[in-house]
């Protein structure tokens, strides 16, 4: 910590009080990003305090990284500088919830788990279905732009987020959108905040539409020898009248991860034997999908799906969650949702590559993952959302230069393959000290994004350097 930052920290304490300031050297490493430890962490209780902190930081030129439960601080590039962690876990109130309106307003530090309980009491839920569910906050989930299996049926936060309040980098508290389900008054300034990794503004309130929780659900696991077969079933479902809630394609390696120690730590509901069992000799692919509806609808879905699976060359067809025991659904969906956290705990040097491609090209993206990993002798696992997003985990058994070189080479090939498909390749999670890796890939429009950044954060103090193009 430099001297000016140290003096700034002491004045910061005067600003928001000792209770809101964390400068205990024992606690600060918990806020570190890629070896960078901030001089202090500030934990405000209100939006006004957030604005005060940002105004102060603007004057003092202190770099701020907003955070919630700190489960995803490793995403993105390491910040160019990092003076203060702005811990938003104290902004954790549900500010408005009228179940009959199917809308909710809440502060960003509300955890996914507590929100699920609040909404669940009224038979409702928010379909974020995001990873790190046991600890993550709603704000962190939205701002980091992570997705989940429910994306197939409900879209992403962008599709059900109605408005936000936030403080811009110059310390001005503003709002955008509202809390009604249709609204075209003014620019949707909150949309660019989704997935912005804290580089545009600090979110202080979020409004969502909520959804009735599905009454009955049923899941299906269909095995294929090849990625082409699994993708063929995905395409056949897309052409059918079926409207799945979730639809993913998993590699055999993902089954191994789901049966490992990390998986049972993260998702305590046990997998019933035979379901997603360790791959053993099986090196194929599994399509996992689920549907909601009454018994007549579910029976129809099963009938149609079996037919489509047969004509796509499937080898086995398993049904799960048909009985009254909801823990089976939780065991499977929990694992699918937590693929990334499970992978991160399953190797000392896990690197997660996110590839996206038009859905009709999904099989090519899957083949690229397989070949890139195998060409460089890397254990791997992957899960692909049917809408065209693939998470590939490279899992070197040890962490050393040799392993990291192989990881870099494999990611390079994936990036080239997916670029040829017109898709994108980013590396949301990788071990620290990863200068060889192209975290954000090649992205156009950096100039336009920089214009937006300059308007929102004129002093460039918010998470500088974490985002695309060094923003």
């Amino acid at each position, binding site marked *: 910590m430099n001297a000016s930052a140290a003096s700034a920290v002491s004045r910061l304490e005067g600003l928001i009080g000792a209770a809101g300031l964390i400068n205990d050297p024992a606690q600060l490493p918990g806020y570190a990003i890629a070896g960078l430890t901030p001089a202090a962490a500030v934990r405000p209780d209100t939006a006004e305090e957030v604005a005060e902190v940002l105004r102060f930081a603007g004057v003092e030129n202190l770099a701020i990284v907003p955070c919630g439960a700190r489960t995803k601080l490793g995403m993105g590039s390491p910040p160019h500088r990092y003076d203060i962690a702005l811990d938003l876990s104290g902004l954790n109130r549900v500010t408005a919830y009228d179940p*009959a309106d199917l809308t909710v307003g809440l502060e960003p530090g509300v955890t996914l788990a507590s929100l699920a309980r609040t909404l669940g009491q009224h038979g409702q839920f928010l379909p974020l279905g995001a990873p790190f569910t046991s600890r993550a906050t709603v704000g962190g989930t939205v701002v980091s732009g992570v997705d989940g299996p429910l994306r197939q049926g409900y*879209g992403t936060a962008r599709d059900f987020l109605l408005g936000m309040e936030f403080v811009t980098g110059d310390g001005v508290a503003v709002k955008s959108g509202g809390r*009604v389900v*249709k609204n075209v008054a003014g620019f949707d300034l909150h*949309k660019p905040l989704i*997935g912005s990794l804290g580089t545009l503004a600090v979110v202080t309130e979020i409004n969502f539409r909520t959804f009735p929780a599905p009454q009955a659900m049923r899941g299906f696991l269909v095995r294929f020898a090849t990625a082409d077969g699994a993708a063929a079933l995905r395409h056949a479902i897309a052409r059918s009248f079926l409207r799945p809630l979730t639809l993913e394609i998993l590699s055999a390696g993902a089954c191994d991860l789901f049966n490992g120690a990390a998986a049972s730590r993260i998702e305590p509901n046990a997998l019933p034997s035979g379901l997603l069992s360790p791959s053993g000799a099986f090196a194929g692919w599994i399509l996992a999908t689920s549907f909601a509806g009454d018994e007549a609808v579910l029976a129809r879905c099963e009938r149609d799906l079996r037919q489509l699976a047969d004509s796509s060359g499937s080898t086995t067809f398993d049904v799960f969650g048909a009985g009254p025991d909801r823990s089976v659904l939780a065991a499977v969906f929990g694992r699918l949702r937590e693929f990334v956290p499970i992978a991160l705990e399953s190797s000392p040097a896990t690197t997660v590559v996110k590839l996206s491609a038009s859905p009709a090209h999904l099989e090519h993206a899957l083949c690229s993952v397989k070949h890139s990993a195998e060409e460089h002798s890397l254990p791997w696992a992957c899960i692909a959302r049917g809408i*065209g997003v693939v998470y590939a985990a490279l899992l070197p058994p040890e962490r050393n230069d040799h392993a990291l070189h192989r990881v870099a080479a494999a990611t390079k090939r994936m990036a080239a393959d997916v670029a040829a498909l017109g898709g994108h390749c980013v590396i949301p999670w990788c071990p620290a000290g990863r200068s060889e890796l192209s975290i954000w890939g090649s992205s156009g429009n950096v100039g336009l994004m920089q214009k937006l950044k300059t308007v929102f954060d004129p002093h460039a103090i918010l998470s500088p350097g974490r985002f695309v193009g060094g923003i």
Partner: protein
Amino acid sequence: MDPAILRELRKICGADGVLFKPQDLLLYEYDGSPEIGQPEYIVFPQNTGQVVAIVAVANHTKTPLVGRGAGTGLSGGALARRGGIVTVFSRMNRILEVDVENQRATVQPGVVNADLSAAVVHLGLHFAPDPSSQNACTIGGNISENSGGPHTLAYGVTVNHVLSMQFVLATGELVRVGSLAPDPPGYDLAGLFVGSEGTLGLLTETTVKLTRLPEETKTLLAIFDRVEDATEAVAELTARAITPAACEMLDGWSLRAIEAYVHAGYPIDAAAVLLIDVDGLCEAAEAQAAAVGEVCSAHNAREVRVAHDTRERDLLWKGRKNAFAAVGRISPSYYVQDGVIPRTKLPATLRRIEEIGKKYGFEIGNIFHAGDGNLHPLIPFNARDKGEYQRAVAASDEIIEFCVSVGGTITGEHGVGMEKDRLMPLMFNEAELGLMRRVRDAFNPVGLLNPGKIIPASGCGEIRSGPAPEATVT
């Protein structure tokens, strides 16, 4: 009119691609709103290159530039509030590609909404946003306004259906925002540009999602003798987690206006009807239809009709979609509002609208998207009577103020345009408007693109237009 500018525009679009005579300009002075804006030149580009060249002319002559699709907008978005050039996209109306495997279509901005759906219906697909003007309005206009429609209740508004867009920026730069593949890295510029009402760029091409048509759609008409019963039925549908594909309410006044014009089979003696679509797999639509019928009956619907076939269904919807036209037969001039309220506030809001009508001496009709709380109160007025027009605006403002006071918004799908910029301070404070202004200026630095829209002018320097003159209302 500057002959030098005219010469340049004719060089770009050809002699038959530019209008400038007063009698020709007249047609482009208005849109679907009671607003007016007088352009100096109308150009009809046929390709993106011509649009880039038009922007260059506007740029070096400092001439305002406004994009226009079919001119069906209800907030004056496509009007030349500060004069200048109106770029009409009606000749850029080709469907460039339909990608069946990826369920998407690449189109020019002038493609008519319903034409796109008609072009892909044989593939079992459609473009889901369905504004009531869909037989005329264009995809470019839909994107500029982030248009909705009855079925956005289940399928989302335009922004949920746009993958990628090509824009000409005010600088003349051609950019692509969004992406065919999901999750392009970086800020969601597509989310910002959709609904920016032509103030950030001129759209020249877009790829939109196509949605699979459901296996079954059931259309129900629930007939009520009391408006309160209808609104309470809507509240219970929401509370019971029944999510129709569309849930429209029409009051008795509107029903009579529509029936006289469309002969849709609406009951003219009812106080209100709910027009409800449920869709999905046959089994799901069947069950939902039964549940909807049950709720409506429990709330004293005197009859719940289910359309027996496509012809009957289309007729019921034809009535709803032509509602504004039907009102136009009774009163050539009417003011239509677009407020949104939290759905639980529906009964209170309808009572308030009735009171406001009495206060100002109007019978206000109500036709609206009940399922998502988006109201379209219609205030018929005599355009020859300037005082009456002003009373209609005052009544309408009072309705909007009420919507905002119960947690709603000033516009759900029609846009702010030049009709509601003066109402924006009801929703946003000066800091918020200032941020919007700075975002606009970052992309549109000298106010070349659609000046005088969305964000009210701050301080001096911009001229505000007064209420529309009588002649604009037809």
